[in-house]
């Protein structure tokens, strides 16, 4: 299946969903006014990918900012990954946060407590 690569903008993150490598990356800022419009194709892609995923899928979330409108969409993505995990696929979610960014760490922990997939919290040094 095709991969998705999208350049970031001041309001939307870089996206690299590589089906061949089983590597998913969201990086940058996610503060669009209409998050559903941006995330729907990604959620749909993940749904299709989950039918024949790589044995191991690694998802890197490297967001500097995200708005509350994106937060539900992120959860939608994680729920798809949770389903893949339930179906016996190996899923790892790496949640990156900048040094001293407790809010971002806490946001990752919120998802971790809702989604039954291993999250790895990774602090980035400046």
């Amino acid at each position: 299946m095709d991969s998705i690569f999208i350049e970031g903008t001041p309001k939307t993150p870089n996206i690299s969903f590589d089906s061949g490598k089983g590597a998913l990356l969201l990086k940058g800022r996610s503060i669009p006014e209409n998050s559903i419009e941006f995330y729907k194709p990604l959620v749909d892609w993940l749904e299709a990918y989950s039918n024949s995923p790589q044995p191991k899928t690694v998802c890197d979330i490297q967001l500097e900012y995200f708005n509350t409108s994106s937060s539900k969409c992120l959860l939608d993505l994680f729920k798809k990954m949770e389903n893949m995990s339930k179906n016996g696929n190996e899923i790892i979610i790496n949640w990156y946060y900048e040094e001293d960014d407790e809010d971002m760490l806490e946001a990752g922990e919120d998802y971790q407590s809702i989604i039954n997939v291993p999250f790895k919290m990774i602090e980035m040094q400046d």
Partner: protein
Amino acid sequence: MHNATDKSVMTEEKDSAMNIYDLYHRMESNKVVLSFKGDVTSELMSSILQIIEQRMDSLNETPRLRKKVYNVLVECLQNLYHHIDEVPVASEKKGFDRSAIFMISLSNNGYSITTGNYILTSRKKSFRDRLDRINSLEPTDLKELYKEVLSSDSRSDKGGGGLGMIDIARKTGKKLNYDFTPLNDEYSFFSLNINVEDNN
């Protein structure tokens, strides 16, 4: 040739010249960084965010404060943006427009963000109840409420689903300071003041 009408025009002009100084002075003494009144568009929000980011950068604010201010600013502005979508056009007939007011100023320990917008009085009670509930919660309960709303299926067509105010309260660690000014049977003016401080 001067007649009474010309004179009153001149006085008016002089008044507005004085008023703008008055406004300037008030903004100066309140340490206003940026203030706007009008229709909140996507482009406007981008500009405001860029200006405030640059300003915080030039003031060498800590990364922690910068992030909090930026996050809270995004939620405040997007609240205004989405709200404007919801105000019926019919309101213009009553002499109101679809505009909102926004102001960000320096405070003792950070930034103060104030917003104001029209709201249908019929929506006031449920909105007030929601804000009061958020204000009644301790940080741990606020975290639980956030997760509850996050994982619930309810959401607006723009994706928000009522997380904005909870998020602002969590990130600032403060109560939401709000007020409703009744205008008539149909409309009230909602104002919100948020203080973001570098209290670590």
